[in-house]
């Protein structure tokens, strides 16, 4: 293991313990990792960060013995936790640990199955009932049916064949199939996901399972099944609730698949649902649409203060997305007088700053030209004498009829 990851994980565990002490009301969460054909050293701390960011969870990362290590030493006390997140695809656990996990779920424990965790334990019957669908690990018709959508119809397909494949990584549209589930309520019907593996041909017991969202595996990227493959699932097992996301293939730093606001949000909402059966979190304002991927490189929801601060140093060639965020924010205020007035003041502040680039000022003037009030007029009038900004200032004043 690379040193920096070890350090990161140790820090994460310490911080996790610390925050547990601090916040008694958050749900204690255990992230299990340590063996995976994926970069678990990158993904597990990110999963922790994403969950803890909500303030609802305090997560700890537990690392199993290495491959072919002594699994008898892996004996988590599941009963201490409200949520177990599996970022694990490796050796079988001991029978004792398996039984403890089954008891935990049966008694109402929450579980998140993340990406390749649905590859794990092909022979463990109870586990496969919890994941609903899985792939690889010699899964075939004996594992259960393929389940997918075809022409908008849910298909349970018992035909023979191996389970699990994916084409080349690409961005893809995720479609919400059940819109009134607590996890998906308020999400757009279609949104573009950051570059990821599109898990396909998953098969399994599929008992007590709902497919919340799918993605069409076209053949353009290779390996396409031409089916709408399950991306987000919920499963109940005993009294326990399981949220299964097939997305989030980890690169260094998470990469677009984990940085995607769609991945982050559905994970956060799915985790809460797994614990309580409800979701109290608001859909974030930067949730993507089908028009473009929205990433959070630091896994934190970007605030309007940050957006406005970014706009100050705006360089159109680098990115226009901070302006997209600003416009999105204006739309989301939907005429809320106080909100728009506060935002106008912040925009005027950036507009007045000497540090703000000309390009940024031009774009701010365009927005103020319609959503501005008397408040912005004196500052805009001053800009009329600026050679670079004269046209935009006149445009804004004419539109505001000032």
């Amino acid at each position: 293991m690379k040193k920096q990851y070890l350090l990161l994980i140790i820090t994460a565990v310490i911080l996790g313990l610390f925050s547990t002490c601090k916040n008694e009301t958050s749900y204690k969460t255990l992230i299990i990792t340590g063996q995976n054909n994926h970069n678990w050293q990158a993904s597990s701390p990110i999963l922790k960060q994403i969950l803890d960011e909500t303030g609802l969870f305090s997560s700890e990362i537990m690392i199993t013995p290495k491959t072919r290590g002594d699994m008898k030493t892996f004996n988590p006390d599941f009963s201490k936790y409200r949520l177990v997140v599996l970022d694990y695809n490796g050796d079988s656990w001991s029978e004792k640990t398996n039984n403890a996990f089954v008891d935990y779920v049966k008694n109402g424990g929450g579980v998140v199955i993340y990406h390749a965790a649905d590859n794990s334990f092909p022979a463990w019957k109870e586990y496969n009932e919890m994941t609903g669908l899985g792939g690889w690990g010699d899964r075939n018709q004996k594992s259960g049916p393929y389940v997918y959508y075809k022409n908008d119809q849910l298909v349970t397909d018992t035909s023979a064949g191996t389970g699990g494949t994916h084409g080349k990584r690409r961005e893809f549209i995720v479609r919400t199939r059940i819109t009134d589930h607590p996890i998906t309520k308020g999400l757009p019907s279609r949104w573009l996901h950051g570059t990821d593996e599109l898990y396909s041909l998953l098969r399994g017991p599929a008992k007590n399972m709902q497919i919340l969202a799918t993605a069409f595996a076209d053949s353009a990227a290779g390996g396409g099944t031409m089916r709408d493959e399950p991306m987000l699932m919920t499963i109940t097992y005993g009294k326990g609730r399981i949220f299964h996301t097939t997305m989030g293939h980890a690169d260094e730093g998470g990469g677009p698949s984990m940085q995607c606001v769609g991945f982050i949000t559905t994970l956060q909402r799915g985790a809460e649902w797994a614990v309580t059966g409800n979701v109290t979190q608001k859909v974030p304002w930067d949730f993507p649409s089908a028009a473009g991927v929205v990433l959070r490189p630091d896994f934190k929801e970007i605030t309007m203060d940050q957006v406005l601060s970014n706009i100050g140093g705006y360089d159109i060639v680098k990115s226009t997305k901070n302006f997209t965020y600003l416009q999105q924010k204006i739309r989301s205020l939907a005429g809320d007088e106080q909100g728009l007035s506060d935002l106008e003041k912040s925009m005027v502040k950036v507009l007045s700053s000497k540090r703000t680039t000309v390009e940024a000022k031009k774009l701010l003037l365009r927005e103020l030209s319609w959503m501005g009030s008397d408040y912005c007029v004196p500052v805009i009038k001053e800009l009329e004498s600026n050679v670079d900004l004269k046209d935009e200032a006149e445009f804004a004043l004419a539109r505001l009829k000032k």
Partner: protein
Amino acid sequence: MANKSSRRDFVKKSAALVAGTFVLPQIIPSTAFGMGRRIAPSDRIVIGSIGLGSQGTSNLNDFLKLKGPLQFVAVCDVDSKHLGNAKEIIDTANKNKDCRIYGDYREFLEKEKLDAVSIALPDHWHGLIYSAAANKGINVYGEKPICRTINDGKVIVNAVKKNNIIWQTGSWQRSLFNFRRGAELAINGRVGKIKYIEVGLPDGNRGIGTPPVMPVPPDLNWEMWLGPALKVPYRGVSHWDWRWILDYSGGQLTDWAGHHIDIANWGAGLEHTGPVEIAGAGVYPVDGIFNVPVEYDFLCKYANGIEMRVVNAARLPLGMGTTWHGDLGWVHVDRGDIITASDPKILAEVIGENEIHLYKSDNHWQNFVDCVKSKKPAIAPVEVAYRAISIALLGEIAMTTGQTIKWDPDKQEIIGNNRASHLLSRPYRQPWTLPTV
């Protein structure tokens, strides 16, 4: 004024004569045949063209196909490549080298003594050039959407009416059988009382990021291409791709409003009014200079209770086209001669003698020429075009503000919303000014 429009007056007078006494063509003396295409001066319509990109050239070719009395004499464009190409087409048709070329529409309109002009420009130029042509008394074949903003539209409608010119909008679907038939079935109650209309328009374009600033091609007058729009450096986006930038267009939504929304209005008797309430949401690109909505979905409510949903086609079961839903069924029309209904019996219905028979035209360009001669209104008049694009522009405002917009279709004003009202215009960059309404 009389000295510069004698030929036009001649056409007007002879048209009045035709309308009054049904003069047969052979009465015109054969000695009066013109040059090249051998047109009698009494029948001749002198026409020019402004904007000769893809749509302008397409219109030019459609006009040249007519066996009519058109004589193309001049073209105007800000791209000399377009000019060269159009001049060659016209000179070939006229069998001479006489087609004159202009880079500035003001000079073009001033020097050429035109009876008619065919105009196909980016939307941000429509307000100025349509009203300038109308104010010169020239009959206009103008591309849809007829305006970029509601304010531009009002000016254009006013100029056309004031000058009493013949106006034809490039809403050519009106001149196709299936659209007229669908609209006629709808307006005559064959689907019952119309309750709800669905209009499916194309899905939007995905972004291209932000290309670097690059040298303006020597053929292109970039300053003139921008005209009244805010100045931006050239990034290789001008012809065709202006459609994806809000400064010049509202995207597929406004491009297609003049087709399927126009047809929807035709069949529902909404051609001379507008909605009273508009609400909806768009999906906008996250990054890059293309910023028109790539998905859109909004609902317009009318005073008479009809609702019209305008939406990108991917979200509709029937996809593209117009569907009138009444209390007895539905009729759907789309390109490719498509006309379908909830019950095939509806499609077999005969429209009785005393029922509404919609304006019939079998060739959109011929209809314009015929109307220039007859002085009768063309099939796609200006106010009707303005009402069609208004729906898309109000939808754009609802999506931009995130608000439900209240609209007074008579006064043509947004009610009780200053911010949204600001979006009814796009002020012009100096030295350009739009004539007041």
